[in-house]
């Protein structure tokens, strides 16, 4: 089932999705205080920043192996929040980098975060360090840096692979408070083991929205939930159809995926 192009049903779904997003954006602009349930990991982010403020030791924010994409964009939201906090408390903010292109995006976003709380002078380009674009050279550079700089708080937001446990355990050894967030389920298990707070899968995306609570951010969460609700019921209906197909095989109803492949 590969999609080079999309058929009419897919097209309708895409435009429906875009419509829902802008509908909620319009609705949220008028009454911004909509309900979002408490997510324990995310509240911890500001507490960790405050704790770092007291200790005064450097804070590290690692975007892992993320390339330019939605995961990085969501992590930038949290990075900008952490940068503002670090700016107000005058902590050094270390940001080890894996991909040159991502480093440029991160640099620009952190600089603007500092300027937005008019702490532009505090922003030090040398704390955004390119380590390597090889997975384990990056891990080796990261654990050396964390140990030498004795970071008091580390954030691990973005895409991670096998090296995630090395990064998390190194932070744990130096006694840093750690918040880990990734979308790959395999690495979440390791973050739960080694980090103090862990955000699982889409909680990473909800983090930046939860922290800033601006209409646009609330809209993202609402659209996310509505689409997921839709897929939640699609799976239930699909399973029911599959069950019916099993019990009455001669009926052989088309399952829901048939509609995505019909050519009109």
């Amino acid at each position: 089932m590969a999609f080079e192009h999309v058929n009419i049903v897919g097209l309708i779904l895409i435009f429906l999705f875009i419509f829902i997003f802008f509908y909620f954006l319009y609705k949220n602009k008028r009454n911004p205080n909509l309900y979002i349930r408490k997510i324990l990991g995310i509240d911890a982010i500001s507490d960790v920043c405050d704790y770092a403020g007291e200790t005064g030791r450097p804070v590290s924010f690692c975007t892992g192996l993320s390339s330019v994409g939605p995961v990085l964009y969501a992590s930038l939201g949290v990075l900008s929040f952490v940068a503002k906090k670090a700016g107000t408390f005058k902590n050094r903010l270390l940001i080890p980098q894996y991909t040159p292109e991502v480093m440029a995006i991160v640099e620009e976003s952190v600089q603007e975060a500092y300027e937005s709380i008019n702490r532009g002078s505090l922003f030090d380009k040398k704390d955004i360090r390119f380590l390597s674009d090889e997975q384990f050279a990056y891990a080796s550079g990261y654990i050396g840096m964390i140990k030498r700089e004795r970071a008091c708080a580390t954030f691990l937001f973005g895409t991670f692979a096998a090296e995630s446990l090395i990064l998390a355990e190194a932070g744990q050894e130096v006694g840093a408070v750690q918040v880990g967030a990734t979308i790959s389920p395999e690495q979440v298990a390791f973050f739960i083991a080694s980090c103090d707070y862990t955000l699982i899968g889409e909680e990473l995306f909800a983090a930046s929205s939860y922290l800033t609570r601006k209409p646009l951010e609330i809209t993202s969460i609402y659209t996310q939930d509505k689409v997921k609700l839709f897929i939640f019921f699609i799976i239930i209906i699909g399973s029911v159809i599959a069950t019916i197909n099993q019990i009455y095989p001669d009926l052989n109803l088309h399952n829901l995926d048939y509609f995505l492949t019909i050519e009109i």
Partner: protein
Amino acid sequence: MNIKKLLIKTFTFIGGLYFFLEFVMPESVFDFDKYHESISNAFITMSCMAVGLGIINLMVLHLDRIVYKKKDYFFSLTLLLSLFITLVILSLDWYQNEKIVSKANKFLTLSKFSEVILDDEKAKNSKVLAVNIRNQKLISELEKDINLIDKNSININEAKERELKEVLERVEKSKDNIKKDYHSTKYNLNLSKRLRNLSIVYREYLQYKNKDSLIKKLYLICFDGFFNPLVMSMFSLLGFYVATAAFKAFKIKSFESFLMMLSALIVILGQVPFGVKIWNGFPSLRLWLLSVPSTGAFRAITLGAFIAGLVMALRMWFSLEGHEKGGKN
């Protein structure tokens, strides 16, 4: 300032629009496929060009440490030296390989030329020289190139040399056929195939002979001596960290951590020799745990992440940033 911001937003929107339309529009409306490959290549080129940023960042940070003799400046020196030396070794290795390829490709060119002569003659192409003159030029060039291969150094005991010898003999045979009568193109196709074969075999032969050159030795020291063992040792650190993480993670603090510890124990007992002695059902229970519930939970997480990613992608496309760019809160 806002003209620049507007320009940035339009650039972002156009970038997204192209790939959105490419996916949404059926081929009949606008055939993207013709340009799609080159446009994707263009965007890959753009991001590849950023590769220098990493090196500049490294240089700035570590040169600053060396010049001002800051802490650990000796290690910064090691970093920059190893960076520079590896760059030199890799470039020389690349250059050496390119030289070999260009030497071997001489025969590839002649092979194409021989075919071109045949095609032009079939197509009665008048704009080119007569067949016999072109064949003469082809053969004289070929003889020059064959003499370049230092035949005396080919000793027959190695398989690669024997192969090269055979291919050379076949090329000589079809060359002599053409020399008999330059006007006919009967043997051109045959020569072209053999020359293409010769270019492949000759390249492999040169690469084989180059195996123990100094640059290859330095390359091996650099990668088999330092780089690969360092990668594998970092990877194997996980063996240690998995143990300490298990010790810390499976402390029963809540019912959740109890469940997590219990399922980890079941899986471990299912994969170790002594586990079976306790209860022989452990391996199958381990397999069930890892295949039925796990796929369900992992799929739910990845599905949620895909959906959230799609919403975030929509915001990226329309540059709807809540946080840094416009975010003056």
